[in-house]
């Protein structure tokens, strides 16, 4: 049985479990019918674009439409995937449009997210079964920085196979051998006669041919597209207001809905008096749902106004609710108690080493964080007969399918552009609301768009965490042993309890300690354990997930060890990484790019460094700060180096590094969701503030030239910023901040 990963299984939810059992029950015969390659053409139909395979359609005018089963969240993935196709199909990038497919074919499933293996590595019998099972589950999803990894080989193959069909169709037209024609910029050319025909003219004939295996892909030395800066295909529409997000979908007769929930996570609704709300102008319907009330009106503003008039009696157990202060205290107690927790990594004998040597220990804390996508959660739904049609910038169509099923219907899934994702849009709550509200007004399209306050208060959140790290120091001042215990709230458990019929995760959730259990540092004795602290606070996937916590813990701690050893913090790390060629090269490159000459000597200016590997990529950062006596921090310079293997569109790798860094900078300086009496106290950007133009310096980025297969890019830039900033602050002020965010300690942006 193929190993199905935590995140893959989670995202699939009920569909996953059901389909897996179906697949096993019907066995090999059924599985062999599942097409996970998608390389065969579909016989052409009059006037329709010609589908040369599951990925590539050719329009009459020769333009090409690429089916990209990944959500464009801003990470530039649609352009990156188009580049992979363009390289082999031999068509200029600007003649390609990219759309998320509506039909959830098995070929579009995210095998990498589910099976944690590259497609080109999936060659065994287990992989054969696993791919088909995941395909049958329609596990289409965008997350875990996997989209480029997942498509790097398959989309080039799809381009090559389609090109071969077009070459053969062109050769037949010209009466020459296929080997005698060439594909050039969207045309098949016969060099001897000079005749040429565009892909639009040849597509119908090409679609009647049988693919003859997969042609060999171009060697890297012949690439004309991959690895070169390409302008993003979606950007022109994003500068003139014409880009359509889910909230901009305007079908005729569109209604707008607001939803009200109990303020407390564990709250209930005892009774609702709808009278005043129903009497408000434009109100079409007020619908009491399980633990929510929906107000449907003609405009958004009318729905908001009417929602204010709902008279709701909230219930509960009458006891005071939980607070984030209490949760952090519980996590602190957990890392200090004698329970071992779930052990993820146990190498050598940590306890003997800790007993023998001089040791050092420190405890670090991080808060809950919100995604705060600038477009709050949103969806449009229409109940059309037995189908719910959805439009949403969801990170997966699967929650749409689940939401439709919950109201006894099938789903038609339209994945739109998303106004930011960061893990927030893998959740089903807004889709469930949209499905229920749409089902209450059949035939009428309903938009559910959360207010900022709802988006910030309802979560889910990046979990808070406390980590206790202890090191035994060897004779050369290097760590001989490391013991790390992390107490946090399992994201797997949070996600599964909301989105699945059964809950998994808890202390065993490896997301608790990812980036720590698989530490690259060469320390002979290591023990890493996790403890799960259960709370009613909803937690979810937040850009870089567990790494956003563990990088802060480890890279702060290593910095402390280097300082105690009176060693340069970057050289100290390089000594600990000397057996790892890629990370050593990364450190040398970072040292040169940042003109590293040590952390500085205090007096209000300092430099911090951090290195972290995540999502199959490696990132190092150097942050320079100037700190005033009034604790105002000016971030003066940030240098970031990434080794993400082969970069597809380097300027977008840089954009993701920049964005990931700014995302973390907001969080590290000021990010903190505070919970009191069972409810979030933050409400909007005044009390959950963001870094602004004035706060963000030029960010210098270096991409290490590499022919290795691609790693992730959207997330790996986020984790190192937290410790690099804290380490810079230490260098500048000698104050070691072990509790995020810096605002807790009186620091603010200058």
């Amino acid at each position: 049985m193929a190993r199905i990963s935590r995140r893959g299984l989670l995202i699939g939810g009920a569909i996953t479990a059901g389909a897996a059992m179906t697949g096993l029950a019907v066995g090999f015969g059924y599985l062999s019918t599942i097409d996970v390659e998608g390389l065969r053409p579909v016989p052409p139909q009059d006037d329709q674009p010609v589908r040369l395979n599951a990925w590539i359609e050719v329009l009459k005018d020769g333009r090409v439409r690429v089916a990209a089963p990944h959500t464009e969240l801003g990470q530039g993935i649609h352009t990156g995937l188009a580049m992979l196709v363009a390289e082999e199909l031999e068509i200029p990038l600007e003649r390609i449009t990219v759309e998320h497919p509506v039909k959830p074919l098995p070929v579009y499933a995210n095998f990498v997210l589910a099976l944690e293996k590259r497609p080109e590595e999936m060659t065994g019998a287990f992989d054969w079964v696993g791919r088909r099972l995941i395909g049958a589950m329609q596990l289409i999803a965008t997350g875990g920085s996997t989209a480029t990894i997942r498509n790097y080989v398959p989309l080039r193959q799809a381009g090559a196979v389609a090109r071969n069909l077009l070459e053969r169709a062109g050769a037949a037209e010209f009466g020459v051998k296929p080997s005698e024609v060439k594909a050039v910029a969207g045309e098949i050319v016969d060099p001897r006669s000079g005749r040429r025909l565009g892909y639009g003219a040849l597509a119908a004939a090409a679609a009647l041919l049988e693919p003859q295996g997969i042609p060999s892909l171009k060697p890297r030395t012949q690439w004309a597209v991959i690895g070169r800066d390409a302008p993003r295909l979606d950007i022109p529409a994003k500068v003139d207001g014409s880009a359509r997000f889910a909230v901009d979908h305007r079908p005729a007769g569109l209604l707008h809905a607001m939803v009200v929930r109990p303020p407390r996570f564990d709250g209930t609704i005892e009774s609702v008096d709808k009278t005043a709300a129903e009497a408000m102008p434009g109100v079409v319907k007020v619908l009491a749902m399980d633990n929510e009330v929906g107000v449907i009106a003609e405009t958004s503003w009318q729905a908001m106004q009417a929602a204010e008039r709902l008279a709701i009696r909230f219930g509960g157990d009458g006891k005071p609710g939980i607070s984030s202060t209490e949760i952090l205290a519980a996590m602190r107690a957990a890392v200090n108690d004698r329970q071992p927790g779930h052990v993820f990594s146990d190498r050598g004998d940590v306890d003997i080493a800790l007993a023998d040597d001089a040791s050092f220990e420190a405890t670090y804390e991080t808060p809950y964080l919100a995604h705060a996508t600038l477009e709050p959660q949103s969806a449009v739904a229409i109940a059309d007969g037995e189908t719910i049609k959805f439009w949403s910038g969801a990170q997966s169509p699967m929650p749409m399918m689940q939401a439709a099923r919950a109201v006894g219907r099938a789903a038609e899934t339209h994945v739109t552009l998303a106004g930011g994702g960061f893990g927030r849009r893998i959740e089903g709550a807004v889709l469930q609301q949209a499905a229920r509200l749409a089902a209450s007004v059949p035939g009428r399209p309903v938009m559910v768009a959360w207010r900022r306050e709802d988006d910030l208060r309802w979560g889910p959140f990046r979990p808070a965490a406390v980590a206790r790290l202890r090191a035994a120091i060897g004779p050369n001042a290097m760590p001989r042993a490391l013991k790390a215990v992390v107490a946090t709230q399992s994201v797997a458990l949070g996600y599964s309890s909301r989105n699945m019929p059964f809950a998994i995760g808890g202390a065993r959730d490896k997301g608790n300690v990812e980036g720590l259990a698989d530490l690259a540092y060469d320390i002979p004795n290591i023990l890493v354990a996790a403890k799960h602290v259960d709370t009613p606070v909803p937690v979810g996937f937040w850009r870089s997930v567990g790494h956003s916590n563990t990088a802060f813990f480890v890279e702060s701690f290593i910095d402390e060890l280097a300082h105690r050893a009176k060693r340069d913090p970057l050289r100290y790390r390089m000594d600990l990484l000397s057996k790892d060629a890629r990370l050593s090269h990364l450190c040398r490159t970072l040292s040169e790019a940042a003109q590293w000459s040590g952390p500085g000597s205090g007096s209000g200016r300092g430099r911090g460094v951090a290195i972290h590997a995540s999502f199959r990529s490696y990132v190092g950062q150097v942050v320079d700060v100037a700190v005033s006596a009034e604790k105002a921090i000016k971030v003066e310079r940030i240098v970031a180096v990434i080794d993400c293997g082969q970069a597809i569109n380097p300027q977008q790798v840089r954009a993701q590094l920049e964005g990931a860094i700014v995302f973390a900078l907001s969080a590290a300086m000021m990010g903190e969701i505070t919970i009191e009496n069972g409810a979030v106290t933050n409400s909007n950007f005044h009390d959950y503030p963001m870094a602004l133009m004035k706060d963000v310096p030029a960010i210098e980025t270096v991409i290490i030239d590499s022919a290795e297969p691609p790693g992730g890019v959207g997330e790996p830039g986020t984790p190192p910023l937290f410790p690099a900033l804290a380490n810079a602050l230490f260098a500048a002020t000698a104050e070691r901040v072990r509790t995020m965010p810096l605002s807790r300690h009186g620091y603010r942006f200058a």
Partner: protein
Amino acid sequence: MVELKVNGATVSVADDPSTPLLWVLRDRLNLTGTKYGCGAGLCGACTVLIDKTRAEPSCQLRLEDVTGSEITTIEGLAAAVGVAALLQQAWIAEQVPQCGYCQSGMIAAATALLIASPHPSDGEIDDAITNICRCGTYPRIRRAIHRAAGTLVEKGASNG
């Protein structure tokens, strides 16, 4: 009925005069380029140009506040103000947008800046652009404004 001048045309809407302009632009006039981000004048996603001079958050403007004003949204910006078209080209040249949700408001704010100060310093950009970009495109926005203003100075950013 309330009369509004939007993107050079006069339109009448039946909404209450206290309704925020944002929702009338989006839900009545179908000008969806202007976005909701916070409803509290904090994020700038809903920024529009008023009287071809001021950038203001449309979630904080009631219809009755702007009945006599010329309202320009992203859809009409390039036609109304020449510098906006330059900014849009600069935004493409610098490959600014990621998710793109904040960019209509950013370009409206940058337009007002360049109207007031055709060759802004970094300090002026810091003061004028207080919109939130959650994707973190600030360094590229700064470069795009300088590019449109002809004040682009190559200095390290994003060019390692």
